[in-house]
């Protein structure tokens, strides 16, 4: 009997309190929405830079040119050796005929490239190897070079080094920015909640004088904080969801070569984290803020 009454009262009190303190509730929702919006946007920005880096990494390739006197059967058999190298991802065999065709395409139909080369195809058979990641490129290249079938090897060594440094930088900077934003957001949200609770500290002490248990005082604040956190997070989530869609469309149209993360799974994951996080911060923050005034 008493327990069901308690539940009824605490839920009613939480909603009534939001209704009676509309200005404060609105300010708290807004603060949480803004903090989470900034956090979510940062997260998307960082994820996109990582996506950009990994896309660039996946496009890195090593060109392996085979000895010109090697016969086709040996050239094809050599594939097995490359596949054994750790870090290897995929390869493409380009025969000397293919290479000539590619060159022909590049010059256009007006010139017969074989004729101008004196009837001899100068291109060797070659492999185009992709590594699993940019860090592996150098070691694969070094290993492939050992084989006697290989005449020479080419890969963008400088580009690889730069990309490698950039990758590390993006990962560290991204992590630092997210942690910084997280701390700033938490600080902003808890300060707002503390302020909200502070304006009602007299109320809390009166409740204590009347003989209300700590639980009975705390629970409406807990529910109220939860609801405010949830609302703030939903607002931030909606803005991010639609804002990101529009931004992606714009980027794809105006900078088509720039890879953007259009993976909606990742977006949904971020939204879920924001909503769960916002609700939890609101609820827990309120309970912690109330605790200070319960010692009467």
């Amino acid at each position, binding site marked *: *009997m*008493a*327990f069901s*009454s*308690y539940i*009824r*009262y605490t839920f009613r009190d939480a909603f009534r*309190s939001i209704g*009676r*303190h509309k200005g404060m509730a609105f300010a708290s929702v807004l603060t949480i929405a803004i903090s989470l919006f900034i956090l979510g946007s940062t997260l998307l920005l960082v994820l996109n830079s990582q996506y950009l880096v990994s896309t660039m990494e996946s496009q890195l390739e090593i060109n392996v040119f085979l000895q010109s006197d090697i016969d086709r059967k040996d050239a094809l058999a050599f594939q097995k050796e490359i596949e054994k190298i750790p870090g290897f991802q995929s390869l493409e065999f380009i025969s000397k005929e293919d290479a000539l065709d590619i060159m022909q395409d590049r010059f256009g139909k007006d010139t017969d490239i074989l004729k101008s080369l004196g009837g001899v195809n100068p291109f060797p058979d070659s492999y185009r190897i992709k590594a699993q990641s940019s860090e592996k490129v150098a070691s694969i290249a070094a290993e492939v070079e050992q084989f006697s079938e290989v005449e020479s090897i080419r890969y963008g060594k400088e580009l690889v080094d730069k990309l490698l440094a950039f990758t590390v930088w993006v990962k560290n900077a991204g992590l630092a920015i997210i942690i910084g934003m997280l701390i700033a957001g938490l600080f902003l949200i808890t300060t707002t909640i503390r302020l909200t609770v502070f304006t009602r500290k*007299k*109320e809390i*002490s*009166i*409740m*204590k*004088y*009347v*003989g*209300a*248990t700590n639980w*009975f005082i705390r629970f409406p604040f807990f529910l109220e904080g939860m609801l405010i956190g949830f609302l703030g997070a939903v607002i931030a989530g909606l803005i991010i969801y639609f804002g990101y869609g529009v931004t992606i469309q714009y980027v794809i149209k105006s900078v088509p070569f720039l890879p953007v993360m259009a993976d909606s799974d990742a977006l949904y994951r971020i939204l879920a984290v924001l909503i769960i996080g916002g609700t939890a911060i609101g609820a827990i923050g309120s309970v912690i803020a109330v605790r200070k005034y319960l010692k*009467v």
Partner: protein
Amino acid sequence: MIQFFNVTKKFDNGTLGLENISVSINRGEFVFLVGPSGAGKSTFTRLLIRELLPTNGQIMLDGKSIIRMKSKEIPDLRRKIGFVFQDFRLLQDRTVYENAAFALEAVGTPISEVKKRVPAVLEMVGIGDKYDCFPEELSGGEQQRVAIARAIVNNPSILLADEPTGNLDPDTSLEIMKIINDINKRGTTIIMATHDSEIVNKMRKRVIVLNKGAIIKDELKGGYDYGIQ
């Protein structure tokens, strides 16, 4: 029912609140606590609701030690004691009805019971026509009536009043005192700290005079007289 045994309260900053007080108050008594500011009147009431713990001594309520009470039991203690303050201390964001109902709700009283008892109590303190007003819409006297209603709505055995007429004009003060006296007649023990000599002299109740933390006078049917020159 209330017993103080050699109670001393020294505050952390060295101020002396009460010094070696022993006093006994019976069920249904009406007691005025008088004395100059800083005499220890508030310390006395705050000790009784376990807002403070004494430095030394023992305090018993209905044969049970308040000092040894676990903090979990404090809400139960406070439900036995109604508290009325000089500054009313109403919840500003709740109506008259909600303020009075709160004391019952905090104890988990079923809503049907709340709906019966709150109107009866508001009627009794003479504010039955202002259920839906917020405290800021009421006069001081009306606010104190609401506070009294809240203090007695769950039938506490003791009503503690800390200068309940301190912010009110003389006529309103008399009205409030009439209500408190009526509550006493129903069997509730009243302990009231006050500076209002007119009321004390008129009512002729037990008067305990405190000065510098000590009881210097304890008279049945006493008057307002510090007895200090």
